[in-house]
């Protein structure tokens, strides 16, 4: 039985009236703390790498490697999903969140084998980021070519 358009609209209003409040302030503060902490850890690694003689560029790349590793490790230990449950985007947005988005499907679909499981489905979460990242890069590249601009350094 499909409700009429009027009944649907009335029900939508009822649902909105009873909707539990999303704890926006709590979520925002936790996102700030969790995301900030992850970045602080990254900064510590970066400083250590620089002190040991790496150029800032190299130190930045190495920091990304370490944070990705950390994200993957914490996903494997079953901790990272708890971090994001608390921190929301504060946990998802740093590069450790990207590692989580790769490792979680790899773990989940391992049971279907290396080819049709891990191989085919490892990008099931991160895939859109890569697809549209590539698309955006192509569009911006085309704009640069069309305007005759020098490539950014």
């Amino acid at each position, binding site marked *: 039985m499909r409700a009429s358009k009027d009944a649907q609209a009335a029900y939508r209003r009822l649902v909105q009236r009873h909707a539990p409040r999303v704890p926006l302030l709590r979520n925002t503060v936790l996102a700030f703390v969790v995301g900030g902490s992850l970045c602080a850890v990254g900064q510590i690694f970066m400083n250590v790498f620089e002190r040991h003689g790496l150029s800032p560029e190299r130190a930045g790349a190495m920091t990304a490697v370490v944070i990705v590793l950390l994200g993957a490790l914490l996903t494997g230990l079953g901790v990272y*999903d708890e971090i994001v*449950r608390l921190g929301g985007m504060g946990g998802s947005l740093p590069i450790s969140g990207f590692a989580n988005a790769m490792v*979680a499907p790899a773990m989940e679909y391992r049971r279907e084998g290396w080819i049709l499981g891990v191989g085919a489905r490892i990008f099931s979460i991160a895939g859109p980021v890569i697809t549209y990242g590539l698309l955006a890069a192509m569009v911006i590249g085309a704009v640069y070519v069309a305007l005759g601009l020098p490539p950014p350094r």
Partner: protein
Amino acid sequence: MAMTAAVVESAENRRRCGRTFVLRDAWIAGAASVAGPTEGRGPLGGRFDRIETGHLLGQASWEMAEAELARRAFMRLCGKLALEPGDFDLLLGGDLLNQTVASSFAARSLDVPLCGLYAACATFAEGLGLAATLCDAGFCRRVAVAVSSHHDAAERQYRFPTELGIQRPPTAQWTATGSVAVAVTSGAAGGGPVRLAAFTPGRVVDFAVQDPYHMGAAMAPAAADTLATLLEDLRQSPETLGPVYTGDLARAGVPLCEALLAKRGVRLSLRDCGIELYDPARQDVHAGGSGAACSALVTAARILPDLVAGAVERTCLCATGALHSPTTYQQGESIPGIAHAVLLERSGKGGGQA
């Protein structure tokens, strides 16, 4: 019993009133429950027959773990009633997994005919109603109803890989891990301490809710429709039903169902299995529990024991299901709801242990 008589009278000796099947010879002889670790730590933890300590049960996948849950619940039921699997004429099995594999794989090691059922989280009440109908009609003397759900198997199928970090909104629900098997019998097989008095199969009701994180809103109209139908068909007033349990509307869905019922002139204060299964102060399950095992676990741990002990004379269980798949909602379809209701009564006689 006076109340039993009222139902039969209102039936005017017909077996079906409106959409409701009026049952005379269908009983619950016993139930066995197997709960997951999270459910075992909830407020009903002490009342389950078995609590698993892990999520995999020694199996290679979540899916096989769920099948093992169902098998253990069924074997536990056999043990409690001192029966062999072959003593059941039929097994009605249902779960949430694609192609209902948990039930099928559980039954591949059991010597009993299987009919698979699917009504999402309303499968348990659908199974009870159909089993009671088969017994009452004389096709079967003893039918087992077994349902299961597994949190991780459901997450993976309906949402995301289990280790992916997600922040869920407060309307989201937590799929329960567990399985329950119930023995439904006719008087010829000894009856039981609880009588299945009526079964109202539900219609699919769609109020165009599209949010997969608000199943309570998607299912509440179906629950209101089925409960109002049951009351109308049996010409009963809400007070005569005893405690009325909805399956898994949870905290966000119960007020919606009560508001819809009030609009139809039915004043009913609902209890909800999704709310009773967990302790919100200690367990972060958002709006409450869900899953085919949710209403079944609460039925086995609270509803049936309350009836057997005489704490209540009558209870209505209205299990609720959301009939979407990940494919349909990604394609922009709304989430249709369904609710099946059974009316349970204390029979006052022994025979078995519910």
